[in-house]
């Protein structure tokens, strides 16, 4: 490991900006960004499934609150949501004395909450659309077999809805990655935070931001590749028959 570091250092010897020191900032930033985006996507995904089913419910008291939630979170900028959650909680009297403060003191958790709520709102709408688009014939067939609502959802509606939602959801994942760039406004040292730090330190906007743009491109490419693979596997039945 030491010899590896030494060889990298030798490689970077002529470089005034990209020293081992600054690269370690980018490295930490990469870890933070991936953690933040990955965790919020997981939370958002788990929350979105029941919300999407509820969103299509016939009962108004289930449907309307969920609609209100997605409307608010899709209708306001993520930056504003992040500010409200990060700085807003402070104005709750006496919050510093509760156990919540352990989580809210550092910027990571408030950002995670904001991102999760935001992506959950979008994912809910994506899934809701996909569920609504289930062909009537499939539902009628399930009923003809005497399936209960829950069984029908589990066996028929959700599996095909997930497949239909896949391309749109892949977009949401990429949007989330790019939206996470605003995390640095609440002092999180994510990828963009690292780039802003290097920029301010060396007055080198091009080098700092081009480098970070390249990292984002690599991440996006990895996500694209993953979703293309999933689509190939899960949507195989939609491909035109060859031959």
């Amino acid at each position, binding site marked *: 490991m030491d010899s590896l570091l030494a060889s990298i250092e030798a490689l970077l010897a002529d470089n005034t900006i990209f020293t081992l020191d600054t690269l370690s900032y980018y490295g930490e930033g990469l870890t933070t960004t991936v953690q933040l985006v990955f965790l919020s996507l997981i939370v958002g995904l788990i929350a979105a499934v029941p919300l999407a089913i509820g969103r299509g419910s016939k009962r108004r008291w289930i449907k309307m609150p969920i609609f209100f939630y997605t409307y608010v979170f899709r209708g306001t900028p993520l930056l504003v949501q992040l500010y409200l959650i990060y*700085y807003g909680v*402070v104005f709750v009297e006496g919050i*510093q004395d509760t156990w919540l403060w352990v989580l809210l003191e*550092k*910027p990571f958790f408030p950002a995670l909450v904001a991102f999760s709520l935001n992506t959950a709102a979008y994912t809910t709408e994506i899934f809701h659309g996909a569920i609504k688009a289930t062909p009537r014939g499939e539902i009628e067939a399930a009923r003809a077999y005497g399936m209960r609502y829950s069984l029908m959802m589990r066996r028929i509606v959700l599996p095909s809805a997930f497949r239909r939602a896949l391309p749109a959801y892949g977009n949401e994942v990429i949007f989330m990655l790019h939206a996470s760039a605003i995390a640095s406004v609440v*002092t999180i040292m994510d990828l963009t935070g690292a780039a*802003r*730090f290097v920029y*301010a*330190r060396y007055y080198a906007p091009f080098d700092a931001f081009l480098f970070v743009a390249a990292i984002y491109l690599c991440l996006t490419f990895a996500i694209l590749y993953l979703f293309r693979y999933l689509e190939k596997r899960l949507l195989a039945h939609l491909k035109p028959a060859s031959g």
Partner: protein
Amino acid sequence: MTLRKLFTAGLIGTAVLASTAQAEVRDIRIGVDVPYEPMEYRTPDGELTGFDIDLGNALCAEVGIQCEWVVQGWDGIIPGLMARKYDAIMSSMTINDERREQVLFSDPYFTPPSAWFAPTDLEMGNPDVESLEGLTIGVQRGTLQDNYVTDLYGDVADVSRYATADDLVLDMDSGRVDIGFLDYPVGKSTLLDSEAGDYKVVGEQITEPKEYFGDGFGIAFRQRDEDLAKAFNEALATLKDNGTYEEIHAKYFAE
């Protein structure tokens, strides 16, 4: 022939002497851009005042000349010097190499200080590596304070970087930031003089090392006015020795 040479030499000598003497006693005008509190600003009745103005007047008195202040916008302040609208600039001008190519600077007369600010209940002596360990330090992103803290304490403390001083104050209010390192005037106006009011300065004001805090402010003259610059440098040294400088400094930067 010899006599004539001698006469010429004498003539030149007298001329040189006369011009030097003249440069030292000549009354001058000084260009200044207002307002930039507390360095230079106007009192409610329109009088010019501030650290630069008081120190400038004291320097002129020490040199033994009359000084007149000329107000000039910052954009045209160096061209105005070249165009002889005034003979010196004393307007919180940071000494740097770019400006050195155009003007002649006096010795630095002031380095804007930075200071540590914390809630009054934080108990700490002079902040150092040991006392700052494990704390969260707030700075404005990309400022010299950011560089200073990152290099000296980045390994032992958490450094939180904010876009504006207001965001930093908000997080200090809520207890997310333990101690902030700011431009002294900025910290004074946003923390010490604010409504919240429960803040104090921790330790000394910091202006060293030069690597971070720069060369400080200098008085700018035209390149050829070396005698004038020399006279001001001597006067500045005298004022620092006899306590006048300290007195003026305390008037505007007392804690």
